[in-house]
């Protein structure tokens, strides 16, 4: 106990330190800026406490179990087997990693509202060809891991792998964009790249790479072991885009001549209606309607709106004919719909069960595969099996608690705010409340600015709390012997994500086409990658791959949908995530260039290490 208590305290405080910003920020925003109470406050508070405890166990699990296991196998592999065998192993690890992350479920959930008539190919990919979709993402990640490991053996520069891939991806995306049927799959493709790299696979793959580099590495590169994550984010995009194009060419998607599935035109309609009913104004009841029919008197506190019809000047009067007259109940204040502190629809046992199942699925099969390979194929014992087992138990426990905490704490808070933020610039019914509010800060630029600022700090705070990025930061600090501090990397990435999300909110608020934002950013990115040093290319691209994790994604999606549904002409939140991935690469590479300049100033040889 004497030993255990200070340890637990220190670890818990560490995690509290990483999540306090986003929590305090969200609460203050809701209460002070939007002037609304927090609904289901005790459920959210419990959830956040559970997130902190879950993160504590999970990060310890990474440190004690997952990363040593990955590193152990990484060091044994090059000594015990030849390159072709290693590549097969790497490929299998990639596929295993895809199955471990609940990515495909996320994609399916995100695409559940797809209307087959509007986006037939996307609908088909998510339903008729779901198996092929998973397989192609898996093969993409598998190839990426294999290529990443080959790179270590031959000491290839990551730059010269990234640039052609990014250019090819951009060309393919532009081609896809130009085709109305193919266009909707762009979102799916880029998102699938982001979600395959999660909190379990990233540290594991990083550790594996570092292990391999310890044996075959050149020794003068501090970024040894990095780069796999980047490739594993890029290749699935390519795979999904190619799969989409293949089915387009084969004409066997929904509604196309060779389609074999059933046509069911009306199915997802109900869901779409439910979605759009998220923000109706509370209005008149059936009794009030009956009263109005009888008496014909306009009830008190009613606004009368006229729409449609013809307006003409007759004599000295303006005459409005055939107009539609709408009576709207005027709202004076908002009040919570219920006093409950706990969302009655949220079943904690069911949430815990699903979180535990997801955790087991993410950790156990992949680790078992690694362990069996190590034990029976490579015939090597683990150096410290007890510690690694404790680590794995911690990882599963942590992951389960973390998932539970997110589903009862962070997601409800995020979706409340997401749907309330538009009240800064539009009239909405706040989440879980009766009555309408806003626009608090004017419909014009002022309100939009509030929303953009909100997005900025949301991205900043959520990124700092991401477990995979924390693990990456620890790794960077460890392999550079503390020369590159974790805090520096985290701050760069967080600011990058924040800028990306702010740009994403701009895109929605001002309805800017995504291509106008993405293409210049990627162009800038290519130039920066070209001129940056190898080390920063590795750190920057890898950290971008891990930013879109379990904390950022739900918060950002909730906000994107909330804002999107209040801006005419915008229906999806896609684009924010893609921009949030570009941002950190740009900031890390920029910082890298500044550092490089400083280094050249004090380096005797004045040779850049690129």
């Amino acid at each position: 106990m004497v030993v255990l208590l200070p340890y637990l305290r220190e670890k818990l405080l560490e995690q509290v330190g990483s999540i306090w910003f986003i929590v305090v920020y969200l609460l203050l925003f809701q209460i002070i800026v939007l002037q609304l109470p927090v609904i289901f406050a005790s459920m959210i508070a419990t959830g956040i406490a559970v997130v902190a405890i879950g993160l504590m166990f999970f990060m310890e699990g990474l440190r004690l179990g997952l990363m040593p296991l990955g590193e152990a196998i990484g060091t044994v592999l090059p000594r015990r087997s030849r390159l072709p065998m290693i590549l097969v192993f790497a490929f299998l690890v990639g596929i295993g990693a895809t199955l471990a992350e609940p990515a495909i479920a996320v994609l399916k959930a995100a695409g559940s509202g797809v209307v087959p008539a509007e986006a037939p190919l996307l609908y088909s990919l998510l339903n008729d060809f779901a198996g092929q979709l998973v397989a192609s993402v898996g093969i993409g990640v598998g190839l990426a891991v294999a290529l990443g490991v080959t790179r270590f053996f031959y000491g290839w520069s990551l730059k010269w792998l990234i640039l052609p891939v990014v250019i090819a991806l951009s060309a393919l995306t532009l081609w896809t964009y130009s085709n109305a049927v193919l266009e909707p799959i762009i979102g799916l493709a880029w998102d699938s790249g982001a979600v395959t790299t999660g909190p379990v696979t990233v540290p594991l793959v990083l550790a594996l790479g570092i292990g391999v580099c310890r044996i075959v590495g050149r020794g003068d590169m501090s970024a040894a072991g990095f780069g796999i994550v980047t490739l594993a984010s890029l290749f699935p995009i390519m795979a999904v885009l190619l799969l989409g194009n293949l089915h387009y060419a084969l004409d066997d998607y929904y509604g196309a001549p060779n389609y074999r599935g059933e046509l069911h035109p009306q199915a997802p309609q109900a869901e779409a209606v439910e979605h759009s009913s998220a923000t109706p104004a509370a209005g008149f009841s059936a009794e009030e309607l009956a009263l109005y029919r009888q008496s014909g008197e306009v009830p008190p506190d009613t606004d009368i709106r006229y729409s449609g019809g013809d307006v003409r000047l007759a004599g000295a009067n303006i005459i409005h004919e055939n107009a539609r007259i709408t009576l709207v109940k005027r709202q004076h204040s908002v009040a919570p719909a219920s006093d409950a502190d706990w969302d009655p629809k949220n079943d904690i046992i069911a949430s815990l069960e699903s979180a535990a199942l997801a955790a087991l699925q993410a950790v156990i099969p992949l680790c078992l595969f690694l362990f069996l390979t190590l034990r029976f194929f490579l015939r090597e014992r683990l150096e410290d099996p007890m510690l690694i087992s404790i680590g794995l138990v911690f990882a599963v426990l942590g992951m389960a608690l973390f998932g539970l905490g997110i589903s009862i704490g962070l997601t409800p808070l995020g979706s409340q705010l997401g749907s309330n933020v538009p009240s800064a610039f539009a009239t909405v019914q706040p989440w879980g409340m009766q009555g309408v509010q806003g626009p608090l800060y004017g419909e014009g630029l002022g309100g939009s600015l509030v929303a953009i600022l909100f997005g900025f700090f949301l991205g900043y705070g959520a990124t700092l709390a991401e477990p995979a990025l924390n693990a990456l930061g620890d790794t960077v600090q460890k392999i550079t012997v503390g020369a590159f501090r974790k805090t520096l990397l985290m701050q760069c990435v967080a600011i990058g994500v924040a800028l990306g999300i702010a740009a994403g909110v701009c895109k929605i608020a001002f309805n800017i086409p995504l291509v106008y934002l993405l293409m210049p950013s990627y162009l800038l990115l290519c130039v920066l990658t070209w001129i940056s040093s190898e080390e920063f290319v590795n750190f920057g691209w890898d950290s971008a791959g891990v930013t879109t994790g379990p904390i950022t994604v739900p918060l950002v999606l909730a906000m994107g949908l909330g804002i999107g549904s209040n801006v005419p002409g915008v229906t999806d939140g896609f684009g924010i995530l893609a921009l949030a991935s570009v941002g950190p690469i740009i900031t890390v590479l920029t910082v890298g260039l500044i550092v490089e300049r400083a280094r050249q100033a004090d380096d005797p040889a004045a040779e850049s290490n690129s």
Partner: protein
Amino acid sequence: MTITTRHNMSVVHLIVRRHRSRQILENLLADGVPFAMTSNARGTLIRDRWYHNLLPIISPELTQIQLLVPDPAVDSVMERAARHAGLHRSGAGSIHSQPVDDLHVIGDMPLWPLSAAENPAEDASLDLQENLTAIYFISQGERTDAICRAAMRLGSHGPIVQYTEGHGLRDRLGWLRITSKPIKEVVSLLVENVDADQIFEVMAVAGQVEQAARGLIYRMPVSKGFVNIDSVYSETRHAATLPQIIRAIDDLKGNKAWRERDAFTGRTRAGLTGRAERPTNTQAWSLLSVVVNRDMTRQVSLDLLERGIPGASIDFLQLHPASDDLQHRELAHIRCVVETPLAVDLEQGMLEAAHEPMMVYRQVVSRLVTYTAGESPARKRKVYRGVAVNTD
């Protein structure tokens, strides 16, 4: 199993920038050095302008190259190493050699061949100093910055920091060892003998070494050395580093009296008097080094713990052989500072246990300060606030 023992050996440490290390290493191996061991380190820079704090400055990444050289070859090797590393250039790195008592090698470990005729140093352009002392502080990461700052305020170069894995108490805890963070940091620096005591003491104070579990600080003699390590971040390149300039002024003036000696205002703060050139009990403590293959680390360190060492720190090294007879592989350098009689026993014990392959050697530690829980009547100690200050 045969044990090869060599007398009159030295360890040469060459510290260079990481991105140039590979080239330097290849040149060295091509230039008659039979093998080298490398590990990673970082430098320390202080920022001399307030706005530098706003810039993302990362500490210089360094590589330490270690060579185990017979004494007759040391001068020539150091000269060659300095030439390949371009040490005369501003902020290029440092080199120093430390004497080793006896080197014992068992099994498949590299050994410098005795037959090779060593050329005398051809080039005397590099002025090796013979008045240096090495100070090492093994600390928990949190105090490292304070320790480095304290040393630099007294005019030391930017200390070199390395990661090391602590074994000891941790390994006796069973599963509870999850609670202990194994990674510690080793702060090392080379200072002139005349400054050594003062710097040693401010570092001890800054690192709070008098408290439990704060680590230990020790000094070791250096035969020869040359330091040219940057300490100050600046945007422009200079032909010389500040320590170089200071040394040049020393030479011109013929003394060091011109230097501002008041920097050490904290001298009496901890009751450590900071008297220079105090006689120290030179033979009381030794540093025992055991080098094994990395996968044997745990086995050997547990063996050492059973034989009575209080703890050990473990650095991981890469072995780079010049020829193909030996494998390029990872080694673990297990170090423990113990009383000399125990060190001798341990040395013997390790040779009897004969973990194979293995390299064992002892070096003299001239001064040590750490927290000790109880008072041992056997030795005369000065105690200040629980610090056992081992003077004579």
